């Protein structure tokens, strides 16, 4: 396919997405479910890609995502809750005077500044998480695979415990969590519905740029063979730290968006289960594929929250009650799916290749080949990025 054609295809795709968003904006009331699923998917796509950056591209098996998300979520929530609602939110223990003073100061700012605050809050959350990651990265990144996993998981639990501790009552509202978090802000005049998608697009594009840069190639070298990479003159620690910090930054941004999406957060939201859910998305999408993670974020979220809900309902076909269908069956199906992918289909949806228009163009031929049970010769050919 020619470069020009590809460009046109990508443009058409973008226009289609924009049209879909405008259409959703116009039909907000009727499509609440669809909108919330798409938004949640976009948010999870960010964290899935940043987990992939770490696990898939740098080969660092980290399970600390939930912790970094909670940093982003809490900071965003604290910074954006309106001053009038403070007493209602912190009704149990009161709010720390300096938090109130800071927020009053923020609300006194000029109005153009105020419309930027939510975005600033997201970035501040990201920066704090990145700083924290840089700090714990120094000792933790020396550890080998499974020790690293359990240590990052441990840090995530420690962060959660700190946020929910009674000692933090006046700042994070302890274990009661924060509510009355304002929803997504308007993005430069565009409706607030667009915001999570635009932020997701920008952050993922930034990560793709990083992956395709020389740093990205160094990450992949470390993933393949640490000793060889070091012998080639790649500073292991510097690159691991970079990958860890960048990944944490974007994870925290997605955490902040999650707080805006859910409108109320508590420390329990960010437990190990959340990390596992993200891992599920990454594994199904293909470890080492950005487009796989994005695709899988949308597919998994939509199936989980919507399409497969019927598994949880009693189902009757022609008067016969299908026995297995009741609450919880959906999640069993999901876990079996995850196991099947891990055991038999380790590549996931995309393996470690990326989406490309060439791939789409070859599709008809492949489907034909699929039906005639012959594998196309260029099966293993990698794509060339979005």
């Amino acid at each position: 396919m020619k470069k020009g054609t590809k460009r046109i295809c990508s443009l058409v795709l973008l226009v289609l997405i924009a049209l879909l968003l405008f259409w959703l904006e116009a039909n907000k009331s009727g499509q609440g479910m669809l909108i919330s699923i798409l938004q949640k998917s976009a948010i999870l796509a960010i964290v899935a890609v940043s987990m992939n950056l770490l696990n898939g591209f740098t080969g660092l098996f980290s399970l600390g995502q939930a912790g970094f998300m909670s940093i982003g979520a809490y900071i965003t929530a604290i910074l954006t809750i309106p001053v009038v609602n403070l007493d209602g939110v912190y009704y149990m223990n009161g709010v720390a005077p300096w938090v109130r003073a800071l927020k009053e100061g923020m609300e006194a700012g000029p109005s153009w500044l105020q419309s930027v605050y939510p975005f600033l809050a997201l970035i501040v959350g990201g920066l704090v998480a990145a700083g924290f990651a840089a700090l714990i990265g120094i000792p933790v990144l020396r550890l080998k695979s499974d020790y690293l996993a359990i240590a990052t998981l441990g840090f995530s639990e420690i962060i959660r415990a700190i946020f929910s501790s009674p000692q933090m009552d006046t700042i994070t509202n302890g274990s009661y969590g924060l509510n009355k978090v304002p929803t997504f802000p308007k993005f430069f005049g565009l409706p607030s519905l667009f915001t999570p998608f635009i932020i997701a697009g920008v952050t993922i594009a930034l990560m793709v740029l990083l992956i395709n840069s020389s740093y990205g190639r160094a990450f992949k070298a470390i993933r393949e063979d640490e000793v060889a990479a070091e012998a080639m003159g790649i500073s292991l620690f510097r690159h691991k730290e970079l990958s860890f910090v960048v990944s944490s930054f974007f994870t925290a941004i997605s955490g902040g968006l999650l707080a805006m999406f859910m409108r109320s957060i508590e420390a329990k939201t960010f437990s190990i289960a959340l990390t596992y859910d993200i891992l599920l998305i990454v594994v199904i999408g293909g470890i080492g594929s950005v487009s796989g993670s994005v695709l899988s974020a949308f597919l998994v979220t939509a199936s989980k929250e919507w399409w497969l809900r019927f598994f949880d309902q009693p189902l009757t076909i022609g008067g016969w009650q299908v026995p297995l269908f009741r609450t919880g069956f959906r999640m069993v199906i999901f876990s079996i799916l995850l196991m099947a992918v891990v055991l038999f289909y380790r590549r996931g949806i995309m393996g470690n290749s990326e989406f490309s228009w060439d791939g789409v163009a070859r599709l008809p031929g492949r489907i034909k080949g699929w039906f005639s049970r012959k594998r196309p010769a260029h099966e293993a050919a990698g794509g060339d990025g979005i």
Partner: protein
Amino acid sequence: MSLTTILQHCLTGISLGGAYALIAIGYTMVYGILRLINFAHGDIFMMAGYFMIFAMASFPWQVAIPLVIVGTIVMGVVIERVAYKPLRTAPRMSIMISAIGVSYLLQNLATYLFTAIPRGYPEIPFLKKIFHIGALSASLVTFLTPVLTILLVIFLMLLIKKTKVGMAMRAVSKDFETSQLMGIKINNIISATFVIGSALAAVGSILYFTDRMSVTPFSGTLPGLKCFVAAVFGGIGSIPGAVVGGFVIGIAETLLVAMGYSTFSDAFTFLLLIVMLLFRPTGLFGEKSTDKV
């Protein structure tokens, strides 16, 4: 805090630590041989709790306990055969994801089969008999747990030091490939490891839940992680290490809760892990190993 109160706390802590120690042995043995954190171990422990509920519903405890132990062993071995064995040559990350997947599956399966509403744990009457020693007061199971733990560990140590299977286990954990070349049937040894680990998890589960009286699909997650930490703390691969680790974590946790820091009781465990990894990565009793290129 008066002396009695402190003693009572220690008693609670030692009892909890005993149960932790039994679970930690399962982690340490599997890690020693497969180099795998068996994330599903905590959930095997939880499932053993549910097995007990159903076994006790139709049998007296004398029959129910062996049944539960056998059931748990079968589950542990089946999990190894289905989820871990096919991935023996795969990258480390894959097999870890598989372990996480099994844990996810067991939790969701338990939620589906038994609902997420906590289930009352059946009582074995003689275990719940209340004893008073001076001002201390506790049920028999509280006293029994540490004693039984020590006995089981001594038995296990003998098994590993004196029997052929034990020797084979030690060989496999030292060098996987060489022991294979020496004619050790790796798969059988790995299964034996899972048999021992699961059996101890079942015993641990009976002691733990009898004392706590309710089981939910998620009651295995945190004890599981804590016991892994206990195993690392004591030095992974070392059985006495796991036992010491279990007791240390059990007592520390109880004392932290008693002092009013219950939010930090879980976090402390992980802090302990990280400090240990930084200053003595091989744990208290672990052997030094060097990475070969």
